[in-house]
């Protein structure tokens, strides 16, 4: 019995020594980022730029969803977890129990503009009217001050982050009407609205162009400024979570995203810069 106890103790000591020596050997120039598919294009494009500026750095970026990213932060398989929503209490408790202190940094905002054909006379909608249109309770433009034409509702597909925001902030958890056209990208929605005078759709603010007209919602025009100030309501912050305050390479990378150069990339990939 004594021999067995000594053996166990020896294995424990040897393992702790190995753990600490291998931790010390960890490559300081490698960063793994996992999480939200919404944040993915920002992480990918900024990582490419950052690696160009720092050739010895290797950044690996992958999606999976906000929950997957936070789970990876808990498991220790990523350094930064991307999330398109704030961390949940349940996730904070799991993090804390495993010695992880999740700290979120807002790196951009995701604003959604409501678009119609430029010939449409409607200029403004309330959130209630918008919800009623997508729920099928308002079916004609005349019910919101426009022509007596049927409304063609165009939505993003249910797997997209944009749909998720729209569902939460506009539909308040409700469903879109069954005959709404579900399209796979912001570009596809914008193109469909350009080609259909009676259509209404929604896209990320970065996808607005002169080919479509964006509607004023609750009296506020969707712009980068109104999204950042919080006046425009169909918007959400995007986060990067780290274990504790960002440090080392993770801090350098997040600082880069928050820099003027990084925020230009944020805007280029269709999101709202926060600076």
């Amino acid at each position, binding site marked *: 019995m004594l021999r067995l106890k000594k053996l*166990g103790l020896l294995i424990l000591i040897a393992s702790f020594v190995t*753990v600490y020596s291998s931790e010390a050997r960890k490559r300081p120039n490698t960063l793994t980022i996992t999480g939200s598919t919404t944040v993915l294009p920002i992480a990918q494009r900024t990582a490419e730029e950052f690696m160009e500026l720092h050739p010895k750095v290797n950044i690996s970026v992958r999606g999976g969803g906000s929950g*997957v990213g936070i789970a990876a932060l808990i*498991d220790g398989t990523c350094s930064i977890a991307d999330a398109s929503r704030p961390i949940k209490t349940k996730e904070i*408790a799991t993090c804390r*129990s495993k*010695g992880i202190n999740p700290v979120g940094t807002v790196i951009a905002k995701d604003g959604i503009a409501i678009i119609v054909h430029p010939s449409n006379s409607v200029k403004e909608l309330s959130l209630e009217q918008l919800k009623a249109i997508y729920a099928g309770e308002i079916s004609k433009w005349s019910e919101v001050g426009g022509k007596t034409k049927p409304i063609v509702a165009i939505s993003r597909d249910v797997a997209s982050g944009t749909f998720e925001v729209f569902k939460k902030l506009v539909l308040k958890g409700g469903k879109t009407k069954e005959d709404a056209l579900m399209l796979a990208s912001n570009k596809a929605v914008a193109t469909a609205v350009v080609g259909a005078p009676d259509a209404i759709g929604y896209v990320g603010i970065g996808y607005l162009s002169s080919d479509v007209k964006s509607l004023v919602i609750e009296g506020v025009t969707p712009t980068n400024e109104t999204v950042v100030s919080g006046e425009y309501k169909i918007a959400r912050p995007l986060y990067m979570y780290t274990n504790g305050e960002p440090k080392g390479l993770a801090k350098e990378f997040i600082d880069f995203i928050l820099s003027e150069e990084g925020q230009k990339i944020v805007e280029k990939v269709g999101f709202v810069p926060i600076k």
Partner: protein
Amino acid sequence: MSKVFAGIVVNMLVVISVFGGQTQFYGENWFRYTQKMKEGETQESEFKVKRIYFRYKHMHNDKLESRISLEMFSSDKSKDKKGDPHGAGLKIKDGYVKFKGLVPEGDITVGLQKNYFGRVYDWEYWPIEKCIGEKYKVIPGSRDYGISVGGYIPHGYGTWRLEAVNGEGYKKVGDLINTELAYMVDLRFIPVPGLTIGGSYVQENTGPDTLAYQVRQYYTGLARFAKGPIDIWVQYLGGQKGDPDNPISQMGYMIFPKFHLGTPDLEFFARYDYWDSDTDKEDDGKFLYLGGFNYYFSRREKNKLGVMLQTAFVREQPESSDSEPTDKIMLQLRWGWSTPKLGEI
């Protein structure tokens, strides 16, 4: 067995097709080799399907969720008309409805659900062995029929839960259930990241003499320290059972350190238990020594198969010097999957 399976499938199809909502399917498989030795003799050397879980979870809306899990396993208990074993068994592992939002950051759960006592409810079998509370039958199974209310302390400072269940575990129903309910409370605090302290209490009052538990009162205290690659659990367990006028007192403890080497995909663990099944008797205690490692080939995610290899050496040593230890070597390939969320809430 086939009727149970058919019943679950019908339930699933009706729920999905009639009520809409969002459904997700999960599966988990444990394929295990065990070699058991005592006094130099091999008593067991067997490959088997230790467990297959099949689960479906249905989110009716963001306030209502239901879940059913089936467990299948290699078994010689069920036999055909000729007396030959079917080779497999089937259990309903859990089946409940969860009402969210009725308590802040929490839920009310009704049905066959986890037993919230000590580590029973969050034991994930990282070492191939049951946790102390279940191994020594303080809690008769990881699940039970009943109702519970609980949730998270704001800002992730811990968890709490109150529960009332049959008290006989998920394998017993009908005449095997006594007339008294078992009541449980579990509380965990996480004052700082990496430090968890908590405890649980279970009380089941006197039942008919013909049933196993006339009285059952157990308490447990536990602590966890987790930092970087190190994760250590310590648990103390004590209580009494049997005749209320002359109960049997029991006590035990478990020390369970786990750590990973360089990569989080390779983790080593050790465990040391002591259990005294009657504190009034001399030399009737048991020691358990366990050591091993797990290797994750891939971690389970949405649309991604999780695969891990588990190994463990277990020695169970009776306290009495007259008794020989029993040794077990276990190797287990464990893999699991989950589908994307199907449908829309």
